[in-house]
């Protein structure tokens, strides 16, 4: 067995601590990324996340890896520790259930495969037939397909596609989890299985371009699938493109004071900062102002990296989503817009837990855009 230092190339670490200083969850948990790297180098090296439960506090936002001046990838080490626990079967029941559900049903939410398209029952959403060529695939994703709140986002996207008159198709109930979160929970074997299945499904439809509802799906399909289509984009990029080309136009006006929360997997991971803002700014009536911690410096909502299925065990402070909502209220915004199903859910919960009910509304970018049609 290679040592953690060899496996994750930790020897470059100079213990400068930029990883820990930038880590958003270090504000509220006892995760100290520098210390985990130190223990990986000097020992005693942990056998897995079951020996370092704070490794489950990581949201895989990538700030540590982005900021490291020596090219060390502390996030990969934390995911690796989770993987060692997975191999030993030592994970929390909520993580176990999410993984088993993904294996059985193709989604982490414990819902049946045949119910994947129920959100679209009243709508006319095209589903690709066996072997049909699909120039443009909309990869709906598990959370927009199953979560009642996020289904509204999927429905808003349908209205936007219809308004723009674009031809697209979905995989319907044949769509399976992309595995972005599965990989970050450390279940590499299940991730590979999902990649194999999805690649086969995509190949059978000769897909040119993929649009995803979630930045998480976009991230893995684009960066970790080894080229499933010529183009994989998040819907915010796609909508910005449609607006640029004049295929989509906002005829309505939305009188709101809006700010925007950058999803980590759109922003920090894939440097997509401008497109969502350009969609917002084109809506007449909207007064837009950025939060102080925005773009590369955006605060994470704590919904990524499998954290939708596990609460940080060692919390010592306010949830970051609570902080985020309070920041937006302080800015004077009446609407906090995001472009990710996990951010939408964590922020909306935070409106209630931070006592900001009635002060601010959380909307997905697709919902705001659909209001302006």
């Amino acid at each position, binding site marked *: 067995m290679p040592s953690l230092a060899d496996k994750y190339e930790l020897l470059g670490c100079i213990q400068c601590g930029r990883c820990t200083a930038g880590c958003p969850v270090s504000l509220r948990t006892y995760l100290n990324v520098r210390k985990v790297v130190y223990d990986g180098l000097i020992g005693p090296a942990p056998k897995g996340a079951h020996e370092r439960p704070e490794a489950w506090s990581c949201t895989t936002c990538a700030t540590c890896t982005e900021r490291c001046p020596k090219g060390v990838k502390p996030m990969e080490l934390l995911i690796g520790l989770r993987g060692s626990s997975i191999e030993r*079967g030592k994970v929390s029941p909520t993580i176990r259930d999410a993984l088993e559900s993904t294996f059985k049903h193709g989604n982490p939410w*414990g819902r049946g495969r045949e119910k994947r398209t129920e959100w679209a029952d009243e709508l006319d959403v095209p589903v690709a037939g066996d072997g049909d060529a699909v120039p443009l695939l909309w990869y709906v994703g598990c959370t927009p397909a199953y979560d*009642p709140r996020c289904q509204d986002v999927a429905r808003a996207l349908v209205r936007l596609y219809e308004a723009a008159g674009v031809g697209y198709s979905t995989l319907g109930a044949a769509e399976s989890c992309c595995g972005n979160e599965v990989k970050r929970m450390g279940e590499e074997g299940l991730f590979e299985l999902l990649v194999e299945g999805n690649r086969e499904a995509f190949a059978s439809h000769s897909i040119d371009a993929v649009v995803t509802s979630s930045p998480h799906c976009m991230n893995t399909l684009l960066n970790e699938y080894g080229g499933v289509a010529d183009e994989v984009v998040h819907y915010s990029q796609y909508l910005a493109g449609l607006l640029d080309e004049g295929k989509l136009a906002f005829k309505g006006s939305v009188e709101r004071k809006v700010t925007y929360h950058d999803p980590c997997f759109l922003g920090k991971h894939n440097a997509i900062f401008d497109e969502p803002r350009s969609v917002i700014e084109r809506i007449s009536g909207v007064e837009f102002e950025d939060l102080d911690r925005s773009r590369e410096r955006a605060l994470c909502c704590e919904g990524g990296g499998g954290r939708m299925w596990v609460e940080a065990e060692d919390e010592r402070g306010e949830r970051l989503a609570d902080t985020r909502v309070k920041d937006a209220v302080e800015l004077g915004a009446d609407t906090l817009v995001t472009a990710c199903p996990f951010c939408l859910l964590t922020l909306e919960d935070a409106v209630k837990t931070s006592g900001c009910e009635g002060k601010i509304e959380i909307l997905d970018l697709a919902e705001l855009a659909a209001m302006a049609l």
Partner: protein
Amino acid sequence: MNIVVCVKQVPDTAEADVRIASDGSGIEMEGLPLQINESDNYALEEALLIKEDRDGEVTVITLGPDSSEEVLRMCMAKGATEAVRLADPAFDGGDAWATANALAKAIGGMEYDLVLTGCMASDDGMTQVGVTLAEMLGVPHATYVTEMEIGDGAVTVGRELEGGLLEKLEIKLPAVVTIQTGINEPRYASIMGIAKAAKRDIDTKAASDLGLDTAEAGKAGSKTTLLGLDYPPAGEGAEILDGTPAEASTKLADVLKEKGFA
């Protein structure tokens, strides 16, 4: 300490709209994912915890079709040391008696201190295999066990009774114990672990290997015959609250208030 765990592969119907098959022999299985019977999963975990505590072998055994080997591999990925599948067309269509009979023949030839199995199969809900197996093996048994502690030549168990009562018993080993869900927290079997287990041998036994006459196996060896399946008749008084989740939950809150529950 050597433990045998009897497991069954069942369809996962938690999320499914269950339909009776056109020939009335069972339910339509198409599209239903297969998995280990829930309480068997807890029985396996209990066996693995005992093994980690005091060494020994954990043998998993199933009677089922080829697909049931997936369940055995998952059990091996979690830590079971041996796996046995009773596989023979002669076993088809057997009831709880015929299943217990085949298991008893196989387990009777093994060295074991304890046999664990789930208290109930989630597909037919018979609850008969564990107790019938104990009678056939001629060993004591306890059912619906939610607490268990291995002692010297005996096991102390807590049985779940009606009204939240817990019956404590000490039973001599070897014994058969049927496990209720919730006794522990089953571990996760990684896909990599299952793939590694795929390379390990499963000991396959036909009726003749067990010295079982085909007349004693499967449908021919059964004491019960399934006459048919029916959907439960629609009752009265149920109300489905429609609308969006927010609307439905508001209506539900109103109903609970009106009825004096909140």
